[in-house]
């Protein structure tokens, strides 16, 4: 695929390029994220992890993927 067809999204503050119609599930799989240990926000809205295969990413989407770390 031509690079011009790729769309830009932001994941955890970093820019990424994906092909159009890429789903949120494909992104999580690509990043090798264990679904049971993370939470996902798309444009500041929490996403139900059961629905990620139905969500197609769009240009400019901002995704946050979080997990638990050590804290007091």
């Amino acid at each position: 695929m031509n690079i011009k067809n790729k769309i830009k999204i932001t994941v955890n503050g970093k820019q990424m390029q994906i092909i159009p119609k890429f789903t949120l599930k494909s992104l999580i799989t690509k990043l090798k994220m264990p679904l049971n240990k993370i939470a996902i926000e798309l444009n500041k809205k929490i996403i139900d992890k059961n629905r990620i295969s139905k969500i197609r990413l769009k240009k400019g989407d901002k995704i946050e993927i979080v997990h638990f770390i050590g804290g007091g």
Partner: protein
Amino acid sequence: MIDKRFKIANKIFKSRLIVGTGKYKSFSECAKAIKSSGADIVTVAVRRVNISNKNKARLMDYIDPKKITYLPNTAGCFTAEDAIRTLRLAREIGGWKLVKLEVLGDKRNLFPEMIETLRSTELLTKEGFKVMVYCNDDPLMAKRLENAGAVAIMPLAAPIGSGLGIQNKVNIKIIRKQTKLPLIIDAGIGQASDASIAMELGCDGVLINTAIAKAKNPSQMAEAMKLAVISGRKSYLSGRINPNLFGSASTTNKGII
């Protein structure tokens, strides 16, 4: 005297010591210290996953949330909105409803911003969260948090990570007298005796992170804290003697030669 069970939001916990999971050299050191502490609740924080290093170790790989209760915190939040966003995400990771609210107001002294803390407590409670609240040692604010639906009042002993021990025993005692909610000292403990003092003041529990994680031997300090909490609790329940200005001989003069 038989102790009543340590209960938060209707759930019974065995240990009155809650430990934090931050500041350790490694996850394995953290896991070892938690084991020595005997804690069945640990605080955890919500942060971005490192997407460029996918194989990086995760806290959940070392501390099993099925065996230990995770208590998600709102560390780093300065507004009610930040705190709510963070805890909604925490809930989404695995359904956690019991949470530790901590809304700070100053980056240097790390004191809680109590107006935002109160507002967050109200909003989170309305959303079904069970909110354990990190707060100042102010009895009036503690009362307002209770009225707003907090499930535990967690006043500081001293600034977070300072290790200064309990600075205002009077306030802690007053809060103890006025509330039936679990009262847990959160922040400022430096050594085992501080934890004992907290329990002797009548607190239901103690939350410790830095004093264990940054000790030269975290696992041993964790055990010391465990024993100190048990010891302080027993001392409190046993009913101490009245302090006296003058001495009272332990040996009778009767039969003296």
